[in-house]
């Protein structure tokens, strides 16, 4: 960079960001060594929220681990539940004696809540990113809209944040009576709100120019560094597990995948912070469409919970007590990208090994690479654009 050449002869200053810093989205610590205004090296320090969730998975019974998956990623707890439950189901089904299937209505509800939670998660992501680059209002807009999703979930399962709703074999409760109407009303209202949000933030010249060409990650780099989800798609890689390795009923929905294409125009480049931001916004719109499509597919409720069509919870109580030995790897598309569970079972009630691979972990891994040579003020914009949630890194 030309700026680097103009700075005084290598006099460096070490700047410690975090673990308490409003822009690090939790307790991430970053030690930045700066050369004037330019970042020379950046060393993230993790583990301030390492809660040993993987070890807990080895101590508790299979269904008891579901609440802990909430806490792996509390911004999208439904998706985190779903990822673990699908992995556990697949491991159970590897024994041919276990013939349960998740009821059709249960599968629909799972996708419905996962997409609603994706909306609320991305709202935090885009709102917090706008806040990091200096605009507080969009964050409040995001938080306000998030309450709409929280209300629906609270009526559904009694919690606003950590749901423990998706279970092994289905979902814990059926939709409540007025749920479908309320979700439709929320989606209609929210879609109108997004138009306003885009007018306020997305097309805002200051915001766009601020994020254009900041921390550009090429497609090859993104793949090699293990970026996933919107961060990967922002770099122009057309890959989405919901479309390319469909699980649940995603195969029937025809998921449209937005990819980064230098949305900031002449000033931007494919894979910059603005692209990652726009990809998230487009995913919100896609999630609205998917929610509506699922509501169309939703079969009417049956009287029994384990009804194969209208039920929502298969009988797995006996199976999880005597699980088969073996291992399984399942990955699902969470809002922060691939959430993969690698489970090893030794045939006892508790899993032998639970491994949770999350999107934020590898996103944090690329920090020291992308932050070299950028301006100090852009560091927070970069953290925001990768949508880091700290417990996902630390678990």
């Amino acid at each position, binding site marked *: 960079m030309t700026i680097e050449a103009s700075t005084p002869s290598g006099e460096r200053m070490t700047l410690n960001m975090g673990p*308490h810093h409003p822009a690090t989205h939790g*307790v991430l610590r970053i030690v930045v060594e700066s050369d004037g205004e330019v970042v020379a090296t950046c060393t993230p320090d993790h583990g301030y929220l390492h*809660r040993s969730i993987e070890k807990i998975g080895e101590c508790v019974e299979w269904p008891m681990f579901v609440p802990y998956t909430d806490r792996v990623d509390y911004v999208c707890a439904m998706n985190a539940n779903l990822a673990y439950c699908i992995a556990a189901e697949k491991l159970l089904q590897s024994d041919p004696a276990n013939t349960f299937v998740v009821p059709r209505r249960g599968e629909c509800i799972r996708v419905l809540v996962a997409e609603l939670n994706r909306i609320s998660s991305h709202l935090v992501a885009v709102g917090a990113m706008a806040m990091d680059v200096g605009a507080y209002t969009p964050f409040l807009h995001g938080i306000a809209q998030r309450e709409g999703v929280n209300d629906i979930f609270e009526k559904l399962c009694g919690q606003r944040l950590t749901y423990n709703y998706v279970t092994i074999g289905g979902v814990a409760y059926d939709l409540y009576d007025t749920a479908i109407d309320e979700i439709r009303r929320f989606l209609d209202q929210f879609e109108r709100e997004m138009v306003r949000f885009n007018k306020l933030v997305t097309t805002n010249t200051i915001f766009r120019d601020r994020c254009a060409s900041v921390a550009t990650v090429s497609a090859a780099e993104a793949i090699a560094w293990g970026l996933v989800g919107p961060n990967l798609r922002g770099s122009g890689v057309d890959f989405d597990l919901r479309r390319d390795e469909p699980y649940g009923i995603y195969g029937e929905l025809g998921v449209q995948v937005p990819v980064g294409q230098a949305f900031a125009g002449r000033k931007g480049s494919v894979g910059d912070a603005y692209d990652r931001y726009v990809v998230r916004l487009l995913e919100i719109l896609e999630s609205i469409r998917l929610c509506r499509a699922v509501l169309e597919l939703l079969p009417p409720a049956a009287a029994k*919970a384990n009804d194969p069509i209208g039920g929502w*919870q298969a009988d797995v*109580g006996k199976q999880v007590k005597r699980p088969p030995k073996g291992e399984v790897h399942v990955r699902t598309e969470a809002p922060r990208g691939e959430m993969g569970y690698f489970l090893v079972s030794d045939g006892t009630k508790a899993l032998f090994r639970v491994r949770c691979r999350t999107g934020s972990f590898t996103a944090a891994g690329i920090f020291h690479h992308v932050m070299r040579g950028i301006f100090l003020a852009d560091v927070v914009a970069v953290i925001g654009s990768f949508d880091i949630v*700290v417990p996902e890194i630390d678990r």
Partner: protein
Amino acid sequence: MTTDERPGNRADEQVHMAAVDEFLAWGKEHSLFYLLFATACCGIELMQAGGPRYDVDRLGMIPRATPRQADLMIVAGTITHKMAGRVRTLWEQMTEPRWVVSMGSCANSGGPFSKWSYSVLNGIDKYVPVDIYIPGCPPRPEALIDGVMALRERVKRYRTVGERDRTPYIVAGPEAPFGGHCKVPDFTAKKPDGGGGGSA
């Protein structure tokens, strides 16, 4: 001397006599600036509490990024052994009088991580003195506001000289562990026959 007799302008309505200490406590009570500090899940509820629906700004609570400007530290979320020392440092940087609210089960006692985790501290009160405990995993924003209202009572009674009230206060009391919203099931009672679905 003429007096304006319109409501609100009379001398006895405009002039209040109070001790300086009382006056300062009154001011502190209505401007509890809190440290923008979130560690885990409860941090999201803290954000929601600052959002448009719950709007803790109306209670005079404005988030401050630096501990030196904050009166109140809301420990929102799990504190690990690695983090606990930093929390202590933050608390030490705050100016007196300072208040600590422990938000959520993890900060209170380790919560769901207390038994099986090797890295989680079972309660932040081992590092900093806690005034108000708010149960919940995470607590609702209403519970947080409830805790703040309880704290304001304490701030009102604070005097510069003398002993400070250090009795821990648990929102909704120990007899109502679910914040009073939910009846605690009696596990010791004999179960009626049947019961329990086929769910996992």
